[in-house]
């Protein structure tokens, strides 16, 4: 109760310093600084400690946000880290890449003119600093149950599941086809949003907790899935969604047209100086780039392109700014970095020839009535077609599930959409139609946020623990 009741009025919201756009487009490093103890405390102290913690309610993992804000205000770094890990396996990562403005901070009572509490940055500050000071998860009370669980996919869902399982005395072994853990955290998300040593740091922590990683191993190719079900007491699948959504218009296969993910991944390989990258580096330096799509992946693409030295980068999106799915913060960052946004533009075809794309023909739209997903559908306005010149086009329309062939042999059913069917017989949360196999994350709910994948991985792990009678 020592909190100053009007701190939220008297101390404005302040995020850690951000590099200037001029400076940050020159490299791929993170653009945000870090709070110091005093500013973290001052910012955390702006929390009203609402009777209805809207932040916590809106947060997919329901972090105890007001509680750890209070701990940070009181300078209790380790307790804050402990509490933060009670609901989230990757808090320092979520603190960096969650679209807080749509989640906790968007729901914050102070959001608006008063300025939401800078929850994401404090979250990041807590774990980063606690780890620096030597904090590690306390495993001293964990009793080994002798059970083992195989996890396919070292992405957010898999890592979260591994974290919870390890804390429950169940030994997880995580398989991934990439050489490093993290899945999209490492390979999809550009380093200026999430530096890769953060993921490496997390790897060390998880390994310290007894999590074993088997990398460069593709299940179903390098190791048959049946071996897993034979070897382990249970298996968790967190394999994500990798099938690109296509625009279904002409010109998508022209040279110079890239799918978002390989583009981003190739650039990560390049940035991390991989010796023999499995994908060729796509360098858009000196190009006029048009990115189609308004999600976070689209934002990653535009900002990667500008850093590669593209001459111009344009983002075309079929709805208006208000209805963009991507984080407003990332849109803002992109704008600062010189990206041009064209809203209400629907692509009709990509123009070009065998030498490559030369432009994108778009038509203007206006928003019509809401569709089944509750979002208003864009409707083309006749007679408003135009061509956006482009040397390179990146398509960032999202992803669909990509069920592997061995699902059929393993009695793992999918829905018509390709998503894995879970908990259908109601026994345990996230249990697939193969009782020994659990699944979570994007492959279950479709492409979504990292934090929702974390949530599902954690919940699935709890389901596994109860399935195993632990």
């Amino acid at each position: 109760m020592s909190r100053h009741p009007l701190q939220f009025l008297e101390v404005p919201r302040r995020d850690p310093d951000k590099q200037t756009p001029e400076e940050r487009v020159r490299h791929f490093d993170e653009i945000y600084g870090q709070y110091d103890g005093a500013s973290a405390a001052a910012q955390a102290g702006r929390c009203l400690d609402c009777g209805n913690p809207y932040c916590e309610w809106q947060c997919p993992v329901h972090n105890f946000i007001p509680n750890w804000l209070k701990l940070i205000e009181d300078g209790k770094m380790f307790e804050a880290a402990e509490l933060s890990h009670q609901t989230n396996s990757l808090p320092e990562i979520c603190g960096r890449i969650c679209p807080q403005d749509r989640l906790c901070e968007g729901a914050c009572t102070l959001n608006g003119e008063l300025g939401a509490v800078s929850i994401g940055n404090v979250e990041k500050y807590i774990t980063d600093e606690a780890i620096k000071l030597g904090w590690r998860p306390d495993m001293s009370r964990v009793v080994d149950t002798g059970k083992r669980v195989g996890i396919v996919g070292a992405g957010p869902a898999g890592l979260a599941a591994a974290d919870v399982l390890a804390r429950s005395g169940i030994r997880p072994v995580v398989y991934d086809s990439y050489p490093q853990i993290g899945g999209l955290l490492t390979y999809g998300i550009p380093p200026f949003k999430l530096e890769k040593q953060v993921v490496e740091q997390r790897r060390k922590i998880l390994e310290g907790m007894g999590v074993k990683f088997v990398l460069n191993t593709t299940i179903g190719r390098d190791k048959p899935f049946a071996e897993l079900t034979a070897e382990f007491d249970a298996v968790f699948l967190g394999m994500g969604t990798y099938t690109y959504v296509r625009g279904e218009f002409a010109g998508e296969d022209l040279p110079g047209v890239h799918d978002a993910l390989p583009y981003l991944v190739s650039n990560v390989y390049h940035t991390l100086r991989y010796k023999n990258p499995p994908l060729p580096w796509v360098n858009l330096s000196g190009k006029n780039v048009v990115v189609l799509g308004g999600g976070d992946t689209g934002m990653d693409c535009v900002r990667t392109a500008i850093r590669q030295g593209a001459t111009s980068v344009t983002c075309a999106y079929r709805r208006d700014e208000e209805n963009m799915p991507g984080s407003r913060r990332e849109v803002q960052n992109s704008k600062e970095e010189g990206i041009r946004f064209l809203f209400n533009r629907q692509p009709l075809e990509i123009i070009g020839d065998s030498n490559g794309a030369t432009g994108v023909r778009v038509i203007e739209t206006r928003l019509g009535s809401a569709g089944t997903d509750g979002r208003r559908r864009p409707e083309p306005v006749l007679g408003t077609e135009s061509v956006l010149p482009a040397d390179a086009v990146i398509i960032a329309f999202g992803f669909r599930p990509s069920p592997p062939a061995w699902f059929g042999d393993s009695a793992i059913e999918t829905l018509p959409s390709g998503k894995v069917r879970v908990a259908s017989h109601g026994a345990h949360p996230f249990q697939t139609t193969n009782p020994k196999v659990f699944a979570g994350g994007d492959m279950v709910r479709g492409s979504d946020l990292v934090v929702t994948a974390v949530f599902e991985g954690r919940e699935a792990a709890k389901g596994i623990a109860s399935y195993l009678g632990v």
Partner: protein
Amino acid sequence: MTERIAQGLYDPAFERDSCGFGLIANLDDIPSHWVVSTAISALARLTHRGAVAADGKTGDGCGLLLKFPFAFLRAVGEDLGFSLGERFAVGMVFLHQDKERAAAARVLIDAALREIGLDVAGWREVPTDPSVCGEQALQTLPRIEQVFVNAPAGMQRGRFNRRLFLARRRAEKRLGDGDAYIASLSSVTLSYKGMIMPGVLTDFYPDLLDERLESSVCLFHQRFSTNTMPQWRLAQPFRFLAHNGEINTIQGNRNWAVARTKNFVSDKLDDISDLDPIVSLVGSDSSSLDNMLEVLRAGGMDVLQGMRILMPPAWQAIDDLDPDVRAFYEFFDYQLEPWDGPAGIVLTDGRYAACCLDRNGLRPARYVITEDRHITIASEIGVYDYDEKDVVSKGRLGPGEMIAVDLVNGTLLENDDIHEILKMRAPYKKWLKQGVRYLESELVDTHTAAEPMDAETLACYQKMFNLSREELHDVVAVLAQAEQEAVGSMGDDTPMAVLSSQVRSPFDYFRQQFAQVTNPPIDSLRERIVMSLQTNIGRESSLFDVGPEHAQQVVMNSPVLSQKKLRQLLSNEMFGDSNAFIDLNVDTGLSLGEALDQICAQAEAAVRDGKLILMLSDRYLKRDKLPVHALLATGAVHHHLVSIGLRCDANILVETGVARDPHHFACLIGYGATAVYPYLVYQSLHSIAQRGNLDKQQQLGRGYRRGIRKGLFKIMSKMGISSISSYRGAQLFEIVGLHSEVVERCFRGTVSRIQGANLADLLADQKALAVSAWEPREPIKQGGLLKYVHGGEYHCFNPDVVTTLQAAVRSGDYDRYKEYARLVNDRPIATLRDLMRLRAAGPAVPLTEVESVEAIMPRFDSAGMSLGALSPEAHEALAIAMNRIGARSNSGEGGEDPARYRTERVSKIKQVASGRFGVTAEYLVNAEVIQIKMAQGAKPGEGGQLPGHKVNEMIARLRFAKPGVGLISPPPHHDIYSIEDLAQLIFDLKQVNPQALVSVKLVAEPGVGTIAAGVVKAYADLITISGYDGGTGASPLTSVKYAGSPWELGLSETHQVLRGNGLRHKVRLQTDGGLKTGVDVIKAAMLGAESFGFGTAPLIALGCKYLRICHLNNCATGVATQNKVLRSEYFIGLPEMAINFFRFVAEEARQIMAELGVRTLEELIGRVDLLDLQPGVTDRQARLDLSPIVSADGLAKTAPQFCTESRNNPFDKGELAEEMLRAVLPAIESKAGGKFGFEVRNFNRSIGARLSGEIARRYGNHGMKDAPLEISLRGTAGQSFGAWNVSGLNMTLVGDANDYVGKGMAGGRIVIRPPDGACYEARETAIVGNTCLYGATGGTLFAAGTAGERFAVRNSGASVVIEGTGDHCCEYMTDGVVVVLGRTGVNFGAGMTGGFAYVLDLERDFVDRYNHELIDIHRISPESMEAHAHHLRALLTQHVALTGSEWGENILEEYRTFLPKFWLVKPKAAELGTLIETLRRAA
């Protein structure tokens, strides 16, 4: 009647009564018929303190108790041919009307008398005239007879009366209930009583007119019962006494009487088993008190001692009490707990005639002694027309005082005289010194936990006992650090424990009871002086044969033990070998019933083995055991030991992890624990401190205990109880949601009406906790009971509900509202009404045929929310919204800006709350409805505080206070300590504004229906029943969570009782508490409401986000703050948003009505048959029995379901006031002023209010200042003389006045002086009663005499000169000037935050009698404080000129001599210099 609605929620045990009372006695014991006839006429002059039934004739009961009219009885007996011996007795017997049953009873009574060796001389049929009875009285009219009993030759009177007593008790036991009632049976007293109006007492009993009927003492009593089901037997006086007030502790007193039965052994009583039970366990509290006094007297104690130990003064806190007197009280305190509660008692046993008051002086008693050696004591002065010249002295009883007439010696014994007699009877002080050991509390007890648990063990305990992080940090740690309970705001929006799907603490099933209307809560902070937590441990023995061994006690200052105290206690020589450890951890295989059996058996064996201390402990958890919840164990052991008569041989200590907040302690103590050691709290605090999360590490334990002690005081005071020994075992709770098998087993006698969780459910809860407790990887729970937590307890105002509601009202889109309504109406079961499904009354009707939204909306009120709590913007937006939809908004407490009167921004409901802030005549005449807020749903029984930082210029102006100074609303209305007081306030309000409807707001609790019936009889026009889930701007968290019942229970009970009593058609019934949707409205209507209050939901519509930070003044939505920036920049509410909300709710209600097949809401009121009970989801929900809520059994179908009368006019037409108005009105209308004269008597009440109302209506509070009316009055004025007085009304009364003089005065002048030629010393004589100038905001009062208790309470502007006062003078004063020219009582200036006083202190002991918390005192030295010296002199001069006060003249003559003896009393916060400013204003 009782049986008729027995299926519903009514229980006869809920009945409460209050009244007018008195006695007349001849000091020399000379009998006369004059005493009897004068007593009867005095009784008639107290008619306004009683109540009249719906038939207009049946009274609630009145009666007389006479000292045995020997000559008369001998004469009538001999006329009938009885052979009467030298010594004989007469019994007054109410027999059954049925001849045969009457005859059988006579035979039985005769037998009982003969068996015991007494002769029955004969039976006399008492002449009566039933034609004067009302219809209801006739229904139960008994056959009234007198039995004449001869004493065997040579039997002494004392023995004779003891034989009579035993015979009566034997007969009563055999008679059972119903066939006969022996009103009195004695050779020293005789009663005449009945269910009639005082005016016809002599018509009914012609005996009373018989000139031969002579007596020297006559007690009289006029009853006001809260309901209209009174019976003849309930009329008072009883055999020894008549009681005005209520015994709050009655449940505990009765339980302890049973437990102590064997301590009543006396050689004077032959067979104790005839006395079993010692006191009646049913019937009224007063009759049980009468029983108790009778037993004490039969055992050999005289009534003086008996009465004093049953109802002691606040001896612990009176600093200057004679040590021997203190020793007397302390000694008996170890043997017997006080019978506590508001009480004015008159009694006689033939030897003494006496009167005494409770320790708080909550009932008035004034006396007058005349030259012919008669003393008259009564609730009011002026009950017969003695000649003022014959008055020898007049006076009043102070708190805890007793006065008695020694009829044998013909002397008057004043309070000190009685103490002199009592203290000499034994060397109490010496015995105490030898026997009593005090447990010392060290200043710093460093060992919060001497053997700290390791982290894992601690977590295991915390999980086993369901201690969440939330509770740990927001409740426990706050108690330790702040030394008081955490404060929160808004209400409790979580389900009752029985409805929850979470594991909830058994404590959560208990709702604290609280006082409303029939008795007052105490202000445990400002009136700390009457409170005590002193706890003693030792053995009890016979009450009659006292000796030094009775003083072998260990005494502690509180029942909350520290580790050190526990060790001291256990190592004390008295208990070293004499304590038994009883492990509450039992084998997991046992059922809970078996476990309790085992524990009770161990306890019984230990007591039989002579153990003095039973240590019930859950301290040592083991994996193969499960702890039995300490509350269940304590209750079970307590009741088991009571039932086998061993309870008083041992003390129950509870060492437990479950006790954390004050409510937990209150429950444990309320069910019998002597003391509690909360080890888990200490361990947890230790661990928090170790981690450096709390400062002051060493003080945490002590801070925590202080916090708990304050909390216990608060809980006790809520029920008006001041001493923990009276609270212990008193079971002052309502249980909501426990199965009768649990209640019978552990909490027998507690009100529990709807069943619920059984022992198996509770065991399952503990098992679930155990699973997580022993699982180390599971962290302790986050919580979620206070604030919404994902996956935690359901909250009715959760984020989804709030955000969808806001989206709906902002868009005005009914479809979005439906989304919100769906979220609410289909929520998980959270309230009782969620278990009720609507049933159609008939085929659906077209929506177009259903009454319109506009027709429904006038049934909506906004709940009272003050301008202090809300920002003016929010308050006005709500008012505008309500006015636009034809409904009413409620001003809340705190006045209203006159600029809002007669505009769209006016609040049509004006609230009158306990602080009386801003309540003036002008405020009241601008109301359509005046609401008296008796209690608040979020914190019933408690007062409030507006912190200084919320008191800005505007708030201060409206409340007549100073900016920045905190303002206190007392827990009680100081002019409502009982039901007849409420009737008086309602009368005051109807006098000042006859056009307004008066509403009374009550909070649901068991018996609220009965109270409501009383409120209707007190002439209220509307009643609101609030649920526990109402909101608040600031309140201790445990108050929000643990007090008040669901409105479904309260509303339904009220509706049932009002219908059963034929009162429903007289009053409009409203409910509020968490109403959110049209479904809520429909269900509330079906349960009996015709109008609906909304508090939180419209606030949310206006932008409130349910942040629960209202108390911090930092509301980020600008709704509940006075912060300028937040209000102006962040408040987004528009009246349209609230209007949208109400329109939507009404529209939803319409659609439901169409589906149900009804066209108007009226058709649904009271239609409980349309509510289908659902089994719910969980086992315990399925075990609920809600049928009493939806019962209409025994109620006539034709009984009205809603109000059909436009208003509920008082019986008292205020004839004198009307006459005065007729005379004066032209002078008001022409604004001419003028002089007028009238005679007044004690039954002319609220004189002046009628005129003030008419003046204020035309000219406001001060518009007639320049053309004053000068009104001269002569006689004794009734209560509320000069209430709501305004400028331009100057009244001079020659004579004296009763309570509440100048209540709510805003201006004008009141002068009261004794008649010329009075022979008593005016400056020592009471001239006005209690609680004068309550909430006055201006004007002047000069009175040449002394005042009663709480003079100038909550004064905020009046200037006054008085010559002496009782206790608590200037309490809560915020402004004004009070001059006291004589002695004041104790606790002067408690809670005084403004204004100042001059007090003449001739005895130089004022320093001991003022409350040091907020005020300081200064000498008025002529040099530095010349302005004050002049000011005081000017006031004195005025006083002398107006009243002719001799004393005042005296002081003026010797002003230089007296001036140094005056103190200037001022709030510490006020600078001496700034008072001058006040002076200028006053000048």
